[in-house]
């Protein structure tokens, strides 16, 4: 049951590279949140029930509801709907994303080690690369934030792979969630656009040499 969910999660990462509408970005983040919630519940059924409940509620609340809601709120507030200035074409982004997928699969195949769940490792690596590609290739600040959330979701997915033995690690991943949700989205939602225009990362070039 977990494998189809992880494959679906991988598909969302591929889709993220070709979509240009910010509403789609927010929807994908929401979908990833729900997928991670399902993976966490299925994967961590062996851990302490109280711990599992906490992890499940936190994942659903932050990743499945709060983060997408904040993203939609930002879209409404800033009235930015799509990627206007992209560093590359959709085809180019897709190619890069697929290249990242091949690299992740190759690295996973190469290290083939029994100590780690390789599917989780490979997908987490792909999420990391996808997030970095999104940050580097897209110009708008909103895309950068989605790129970061993608990385963070990948890290959380990987933590569920190890968390069966060490549930404490998942709590640390949750701490990262809270930091991001509160601080990054908070700054973005309340401050940016008032002093800095949120429509282009070029607005973030005043502090430099």
């Amino acid at each position: 049951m977990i494998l189809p969910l992880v494959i679906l999660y991988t598909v969302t990462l591929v889709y993220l590279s070709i979509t240009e509408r910010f509403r789609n970005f927010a929807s994908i983040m929401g979908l990833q949140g729900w997928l991670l919630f399902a993976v966490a519940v299925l994967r961590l059924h062996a851990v302490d029930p109280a711990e599992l409940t906490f992890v499940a509620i936190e994942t659903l609340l932050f990743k499945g509801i709060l983060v997408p809601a904040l993203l939609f709120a930002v879209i409404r507030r800033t009235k930015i709907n799509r990627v206007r200035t992209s560093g590359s074409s959709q085809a180019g982004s897709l190619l890069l994303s697929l290249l990242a997928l091949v690299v992740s699969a190759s690295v996973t195949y190469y290290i083939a080690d029994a100590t780690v769940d390789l599917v989780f490792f490979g997908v987490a690596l792909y999420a990391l690369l996808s997030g970095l590609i999104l940050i580097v290739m897209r110009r708008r600040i909103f895309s950068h934030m989605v790129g970061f959330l993608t990385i963070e979701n990948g890290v959380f997915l990987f933590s569920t792979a190890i968390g069966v033995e060490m549930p404490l690690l998942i709590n640390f991943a949750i701490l990262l969630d809270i930091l991001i949700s509160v601080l990054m989205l908070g700054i973005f939602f309340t401050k940016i656009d008032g002093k800095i225009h949120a429509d282009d990362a070029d607005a973030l070039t005043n502090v430099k040499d």
Partner: protein
Amino acid sequence: MLYYLLLATAVASAVFAARSRRQIFIAGVLFYLVQALFAAHVLCGGACDPLSAQWFAFDASAILFYVLLCIVSCYAFVHSEAYLADCDLGQVRTYSALLMLLTTAIAGAYFADNLAVTWIFLEATTLCSAGIVYHRRTAATLEAAWKYVFVCSTGIAMAYLGILLLAAATKCESLAYADVAAAAPAGSPLYLKTAFLLILCGYSCKVELFPLYTVGVDANFAAPSPASALISTGLVNAGFLAVLRVYKTLAQTDVFPWVRAVLLLVGVLSLVIGALFLRRTNNYKRFLSYSTVENMGIAAIGLGIGGAGVWAAVFHVVCHTLVKSSLFFQMAVVRQVYNGYRINRLGDYIRINRIGAIGLLAGMVTLLAFPPSPLFVSELMILREVIAVHKWWLVAVMTLLLCIVIYSFCSRMIRLCYQPNQDELHPSKADRALSWSALSLLIAALVLGMWQPDFLCRIIDQIAAL
């Protein structure tokens, strides 16, 4: 340790409720009293309470860097009083509380004896630093704060992935450094290498090393100068200590030569960036920040070379803390005089504030590692070690880059002190007491250059032992 953290956090949080500057000052005195008591406790060999012993340890590195942190933070608090004279109460309250919380978070990172606990406290420093960076509430400070939060969060997430990989590779139930170090030799080399790479990349935003050094520079530029002194030394040391602990954790594994090679590469790249940007920047605070990148690059080269290089790297970081904080405090006085940091506009400082100018020039000579600078000792040791392993290319690169650094520093600092003002600046009066106070840190560093006390050598021996 938990009591210390709770007490320090409580005092710092109480500042948010202060209704006058006097109350903030009293809370500050109370906060540093707590620090002094805790420092006395750890210096007298006090043990960690059983509850926190599983997460924290009072080892030599933590104690040494904590004492330095207390000194720099206390200076930063006192200098901030004068620096923030024109700010309203709300701003001073938030700034002072965040400065204390940042000090507490850094102390937590120093004493953490567990990979995950170190990570948590480094994450906490991001929260506190971001607030300090945004202190002025301008578009530039918001931009710097946003970049800081964004890049540090990305770095912290990468470091966390590295910690997960390390945990997976070692199959270690606990993430205590000693346990991971004991299990690491049996771990998969590729996992260990990937884990180290991710952790180093992630923490580079705190250590101000290549590749994520940029956010540290931006943060130092946007934050008030006394806070920059803390960020550029105390926080950088927290990152350095985190990297040093992972470095020591992997010391007994087969991948250790590779780890050292990576550190060498990162160190050289940081040195290149630091040296080149010292020529390019037109702002004194960014100038000092690039100097931090350069010095941390030298420390990374020391770790990469190994042997006596590790000792030299630790000694270099300790002395850099005193010298760099002194220069940032002097820079706070410069801002008080000129209300700005633009290199091409300021000058004639020697006539306006003689003691401040002497402090800057002496700081420059010390930072450039001319005898009797303590950095001369550490850089000479590192160079000797580089020559001993016949890495002649590295000797050539380091010599060339250090020459560029010397030229940049001399031209910029001499310009500030002796060049006539470029336009109709109306310098204000300088607070000489602050210049004297900043100079005292430099004098302490110079004393270390001429005489390294036995107890300090013993402590650094313990830290450098692999």
